């Protein structure tokens, strides 16, 4: 039942340039795409959550998988890790994420980093939907 007197909010479609910029920015820095679309609450939550998961993963002795295309699982692990955008590339270039398979928390750490990357991919899709006017 719709409430009377309150006009329904119609999502506004952003231009092609803004949509592309939001998706690229979101892929590079978690939440930045939403910030460009003035969705500040989402931007802050996405940035905080994904950065925290990534940092905690590294703290738990996760390994950052290199761009290795020798087999399917290596590709999938790399894609999941690299989903965090600049967080992955900066950490990888700085030599972080060597990983310690003997550590008790190694698997947990890897899961944290994979999921941070996969969540960021979802966040980019969400930014795309907002920019296209499919959701608020």
């Amino acid at each position, binding site marked *: 039942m719709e409430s009377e007197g309150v006009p329904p909010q119609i999502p506004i479609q952003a231009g092609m340039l803004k949509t592309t910029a939001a998706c690229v920015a979101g892929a590079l820095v978690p939440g930045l795409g939403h910030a460009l679309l003035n969705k500040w609450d989402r931007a802050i939550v*996405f940035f905080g959550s994904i950065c925290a998961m990534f940092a905690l993963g590294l703290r738990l002795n996760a390994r950052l998988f290199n761009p290795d295309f020798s087999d399917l699982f290596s590709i999938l692990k790399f894609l999941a890790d690299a989903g965090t955008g600049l967080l992955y590339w900066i950490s990888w270039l700085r030599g972080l994420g060597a990983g310690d398979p003997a550590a008790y928390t190694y698997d*947990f750490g890897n899961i*944290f980093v994979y999921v941070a990357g996969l*969540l960021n991919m979802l966040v980019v899709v969400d930014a795309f939907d907002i920019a296209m006017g499919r959701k608020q």
Partner: protein
Amino acid sequence: MNSHLLLMLIFSVPVSLVFTFIAKNGAKERIKYFIFLLGSFILLSIVAGWLMYPFPF
């Protein structure tokens, strides 16, 4: 930090938060959905853990 349960709880919070903000608008709806997701994560993980308890046979 060697507790599986604690790590699972820490994992559940940001994941539930991201899913909540993707799926819902409005503070009240978000709070309800976040609690539902977090509770589901915890409960189902414990249930799955007990289901796997007898393995390997």
